[in-house]
């Protein structure tokens, strides 16, 4: 009887003790639906790769300590597909039922906007890894919410600066963007930035087809007919690939300099089918624009070896998000004498921090220290010996493509990109 009681007590105590030795991270990203292939699954793969590497202590310094401060990392991976209401419910489940220690996730800007106040209410450290809307920290102030990737404003301003630099004497622009928040905001920022940089620029046409419309013959004809010097598109996934497949044979990218702000995700898949001279963005210094630092060599090399495919920008953003949290966790441990840090302590350690990742330097400079800024880069495609390469690459420092702390993106662009 005594042995039985001891065994029972051990069975109850052991998992609790084990839980104290592990850090459970909720990972939320698209595992189904159209966003799964370009963003969700590459990000999930990156999360699994980085977590395994960290648990094995194989990441380069200063990330070499096993897990988070010596505690093994455990993940609970959740599908982001479904309505915003579903995501809020699932977020509560992750926190209240699965008892995760912290959460890294979310691709959709709509989901990020909905999750942020709930994370705050539940006092759960949450790091958004990919969503682009600048409104999260421009319209709100949070203690528990962070984003270790730059906003979509950087993509649009970087694109405008690039085309101004790369194509002399621009007189007209046109756009084809998906008709929802992401497409409208991206085009809005780009148009605004172009009008500041080239005040006389004329907008020939702004096409806003439905998300996942798939057939763009009429839009391509309208763009060809407009004959603008530059075409801007923030299309992603199948829409981006369909635009390239349908526009390429019709000479769209030859007629106008075409900027695809998320084009890097198609680069790995379409390769030679992307016409020469197309301007590709990677939402930051990721993928082909990533620096040759040891973190990139470790991440991209290991990822490619494990999955037989190259990591795209969503993979980089996820890796960077987890490394940022690890840095903050260990910094907080250092400060509290090696104890397991609370969510508040981890948050305080990440606020205004600077850390290195596979995409280079990440500075938590905006949103009261909760929003990252990074440099960005754009380049043009060129087929060399059957292989797609990027030429005329230009890099723009973080200060040039991100608003200063406290400024709203639209106001900053309208002001002529003035620092505070």
């Amino acid at each position, binding site marked *: 009887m005594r042995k039985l009681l001891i065994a029972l007590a051990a069975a109850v105590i052991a998992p609790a003790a084990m839980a104290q030795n592990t850090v459970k991270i909720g990972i939320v990203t698209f*595992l*189904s639906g*159209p966003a799964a292939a370009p963003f969700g699954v590459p990000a999930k793969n990156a999360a699994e790769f980085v977590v395994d590497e960290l648990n094995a202590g194989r990441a380069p310094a200063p990330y070499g300590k096993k897990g988070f401060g010596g505690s093994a990392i455990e993940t609970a991976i959740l599908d982001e597909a479904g309505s915003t209401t579903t995501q809020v419910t699932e977020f509560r489940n992750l926190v209240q039922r699965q008892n995760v220690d912290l959460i890294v996730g979310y691709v959709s800007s709509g989901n990020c906007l909905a999750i942020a106040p709930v994370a705050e209410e539940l006092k759960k450290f949450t790091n958004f890894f990919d969503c682009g809307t600048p409104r999260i920290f421009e319209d709100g102030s949070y203690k528990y919410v962070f984003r270790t990737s730059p906003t979509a404003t950087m993509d649009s301003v970087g694109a405008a600066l690039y085309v101004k630099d790369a194509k002399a004497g621009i007189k007209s622009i046109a756009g084809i963007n998906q008709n929802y928040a992401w497409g409208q905001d991206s085009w809005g920022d780009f148009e605004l930035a172009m009008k500041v940089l080239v005040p006389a620029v004329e907008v020939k046409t702004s096409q806003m087809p439905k998300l996942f419309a*798939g057939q763009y013959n009429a839009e391509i004809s309208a763009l060809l007919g407009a004959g603008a010097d530059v075409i801007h598109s923030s299309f992603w*996934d199948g829409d981006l690939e369909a635009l390239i497949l349908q526009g390429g044979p019709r000479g769209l990218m030859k007629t106008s300099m075409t900027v695809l702000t998320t084009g890097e995700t198609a680069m790995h898949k379409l390769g030679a*089918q992307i016409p020469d001279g197309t301007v590709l963005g990677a939402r930051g210094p990721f993928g082909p624009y990533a620096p040759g630092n040891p973190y990139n060599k470790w991440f991209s090399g290991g990822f490619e070896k494990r999955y037989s495919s190259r990591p795209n920008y969503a993979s980089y953003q996820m890796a960077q998000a987890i490394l940022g949290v690890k840095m903050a966790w260990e910094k907080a441990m250092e400060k509290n004498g090696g104890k397991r840090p609370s969510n508040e302590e981890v948050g305080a350690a990440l606020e205004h921090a600077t850390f290195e990742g596979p995409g280079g330097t990440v500075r938590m400079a905006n949103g009261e220290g909760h929003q990252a800024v990074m440099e960005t880069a754009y380049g043009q495609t060129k087929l060399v010996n059957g292989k797609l390469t990027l030429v005329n690459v230009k890099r723009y420092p973080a200060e040039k493509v991100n608003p200063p702390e406290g400024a709203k993106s639209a106001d900053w662009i309208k002001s002529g990109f003035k620092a505070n």
Partner: protein
Amino acid sequence: MQQLLSVAVDGVIYSAWLFIAALGLTLIYGVMKIVNVTHGSFYALGAYAGASFTGVWLARGYPPVLSYAVLFGAAILITLAFAPLIERGILRFMYAKDEVVILLITYALFLILEDVIKLIWGVNPYFIAEPYALLGSFQVAGMAYPTYNLLLVALAVVFGGGLAWFLSGTRIGKLLRAVIHDPEVSRAMGVNVERYYLATFTFGSLLAALAGSYTAPTVSVVPGLGVEIIVLSFAVVVIGGLGSLPGAALGAVLVGLVRSLSVHYLPQVELFVIYFVMAMVLALRPRGLFSLEEPRKI
């Protein structure tokens, strides 16, 4: 003038694509009175099968010109693998139920098939751009259009014309029209209605699969492909009149041209213009432009 010509060409290309997709939907409704949401799944299955088979065909170095036949064969194979199974295994037990219940059942099947597609093909996109580029391009109003678009227009004419001929000019077609008008009397006259239901569902689904298969070279074949097409196809058949073949043709042309006009002249309204046309048609003719005559039953 040049822009108007461009509007017409874009409208015809879009109409042809829509018509191929909507044709099977209106046929199935006409014969079986099923608002078939799985039509979108067959479109997606056709696209995946077309991309996979043609991809393998081209990768093995077989003649690229035969890839058009491979697209056709892939649509037939995938339809035969799924359509009879769904009709015989599930739908035939539901015919006595209300139309709304069957609609919900086909919607459930649509969701299941979406996951089946992911189980078979995963979430990564498939591309087969070669057939799209192979035929070269033609010039209209100073703009290049891939000749492949003409193939879609030709397919729409052949499928639509062929089906019209089949229904009015063949014995089986006439029997099918009898089933459309009154399945009970047809059954009483010795027509094997169940067999016609199976054939109609399979053929209607094949048209969706063919639409998907021949669309595959122009797009990235990704999960969720069947969602958009089912909504547009419904708009087309509702405008034309559910179950009407000429109605589907007119609906597709109307939608194609109106969309093309809006893209060229007023892109801000492109998102809702198709549904605006649908609403206007339904306001004036609630059963669509070419609704089938309902025989009065005593």
